[in-house]
């Protein structure tokens, strides 16, 4: 199973890794996709920054798991 970035097609092996990639990349096109899913990029970042546990990534990963899965 792999997960393809909906913006740049980068392949990740877990939705959490893909969330890390998308937030980490953080350029306009990746941010626009994140916004289109009802998230505020800055809120995800703040979730990450303010506490242990990677909560910002986890929130985005839930959406990515459903939308970007590709059967190998």
């Amino acid at each position, binding site marked *: 199973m792999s997960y393809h970035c909906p913006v740049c097609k980068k392949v990740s092996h877990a939705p959490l890794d893909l969330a890390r990639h998308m937030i980490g990349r953080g350029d*306009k096109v990746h941010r626009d996709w994140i916004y289109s899913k009802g998230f505020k990029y800055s809120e995800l970042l703040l979730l990450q920054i303010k506490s*242990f546990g990677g909560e910002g990534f986890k929130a985005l990963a839930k959406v990515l798991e459903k939308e970007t899965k590709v059967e190998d």
Partner: protein
Amino acid sequence: MSKYSVIGTRVNMVGGTDKVTGNAKYTTDINLPGMLYGKILRSPHPHAKILRIDTRKAEKMVGVKAVVTGKDTIGKKQGIWRRFPELCDEEILCRTKVRFIGDPVASVAAIDEDTAEEALELIKVDYEVLPAVFDPMEAITEEAPQIHEGVELNINVNRHIEWGNVDDAFKKCDHIREDQFVCSSQAHMCMETHCAIASFDYNGKLTVWTSTQSSYYIQVLLMGMLGMREGDIRVINPYTGGGFGSKFELDSAQFCASLLSKKVCKPVKIVLNRMEEFTATKRRTPMYYFLKLGAKKDGTLLAKEVRVITEGGAYTAMGATALYLTGFFSSFPYKYPNYRYDGYRAYTNTQTSSAMRGFGAPQSTFVGESQLDMMADDLGIDPIEIRRKNGMTPDYVVPGQAFIQSCGLHQCLDKIEAHIKGRGKLPPNRGIGIAAYGFMSGGIFNWFDTPYAFSAAIVKINIDGKVDVFTGANEIGQGSDTTLSLICAEELGVNFDDIRIHSADTGICPADLGAWGSRQTLMSGNAVKMAAADAKRQLMEFAAAKLGVNIVYDLDIKDGWIHLIDRPERGVSYFDIVKAAIRGKDGETIIGRGHYTPHRKGMISPAYSFGIQAAEVEVDPETGKYKLLRATTAHDSGQVINPVGIEGQLEGAIMMAGGYGYCEDQPHENGRILNPAIGDYQLIRSLDMPETNILEIDTYEPEGPFGAKEAGEGLTNPTAGAIGNAIYKAVGVRINTLPITPEKVFKALKEKEKKEKKKKKKKK
């Protein structure tokens, strides 16, 4: 007896005689006919819009030959992370906005420095001052002013590393600690400030003499910013008075001198003064660290989680790399089965933070080694034992990140343990603290997007047997010319004195990424070794024919004698064979070529050094003042190539890293650095230096030339952590913010006293 003839011997530094006799010519010593002198006008505001720049008066001033502003540029932004255009965010000469006090806005070339300085005062800049933000924790709030357009929360870069299942692992821990630390800034304090002479000629060629850690990077960055072709720019690195991470990005002296020279077709020299060096170049990255560490009762570390927010300053520079490396080295040098790192770099209206010796690892080592001692203390385990239990070993894989081949960490632990035992019972208020560390031997990353090999070298053997080495590697005072000459001499089997090295001139040397990330011994060393082997092979063809040897025998050269390895007495003079080979090749010069780029070596580096340092301090409990008495280091750098060089690196590192732990800082108020002078900036000086000792460790790194790996930056990593732990051992107080000043120790001692009194009262 050593199997090597040259490496590992004590030799005089290449260029050392020139330096100690005052004959070495640094960039600032070079004067060209008709040369002009440049000065740079800098922003007095931390954040402002540029409304108008009026240079007319300055241009009319007698003696002024040229004035440039952002309008004279091709309007590009530059950065060393060329693969990521959004991280190329620095104009150098600002066109519309300034982002820190010191941002350049104009530059003048005149017949002398005084005229250029005076002309700066005639340039009128109208600014619209904008709200500014200085602290990264404030910069990442919704209310903070946006420093770069479109960068939300001013978060410039974020980096994440994770393996294992951190959340589950914490549930299995017997003990968890959460701690916060603050790591301060530090100035590079090179003896030679940033400087450049640029000479653009009527043929459209630009030559730049500059104090740099990477001639190649400066060549390519100038190409981008001036709209020229790479081959039309030649960058020459004369003697250089230190870099420490501050000199491998394009700086204002290089860019403005080049721009001015292009305008007037005359050489222009710009030398930054010490105040500019402190306020307008780059610096070590201040960091807020949040750590969570979980362990079993027996001291087995199960999980670590790290969050970091760094004060990035106005531009990206090398800050993105420092952000990644501090996260990677937060896991060092231990085998964490579960690890998570989240790092964020915030833009602020302060001087840009970037690379500095250790590259994020001095920060991670200070916080990590402090917390590990706290964990050991909580669990009642000896600090050496907890490190022994969890320390990396040879052939260890850092999941998804790195493959450790050689690792002498446990040998280092044994040596340091013996050293501590040897010190016996210490007097009151004295303590020995330890810190373990590791570091890379050059970075694998190619954010610069070079199409060339990371290192390359050419070896030319002359008719008299003397050898010329051409390498793009930069000698910046760290001794790379010496190390590379030793490697070449060993491989060719000639004397060290037979080698003449030509380095870091892009006009005659093959490209090399330069002196940063402790890369030159391993990477440039491999390239030189390969080039020497290539030249040697060409000689051996003639030697084998001359000797008429059975093909089952192998030949080698030692001390100028080409011989059968199994029968060393049977051979022929190297010098005779060189002559014969050149004649036999129709007079063609013997030239060997070598190059090195790491492949399939993980994400970070092809090899890692390891070490432990023990710092011994004595604290005066009345005042908090303490003295660093001894720093003893067991450092695993693989096969030692240049022992004198390692000793120099160690002493320099103690001075620099001790300063980071003890006194160095760059406090600022409203974006203005408060101590921008050598008299105000506190350093460890010669009389404050502790006794330093290095304990030798015997390891061999398969990836390194003759088994060598780094011995430069890694030594900067442990000292602050070791000092912090030593102070705790001495007087029982823990300081979580750098630098650990006597004032902080004093305050902590008073707090401790208060708490103890309260406890006593309660008992009564």
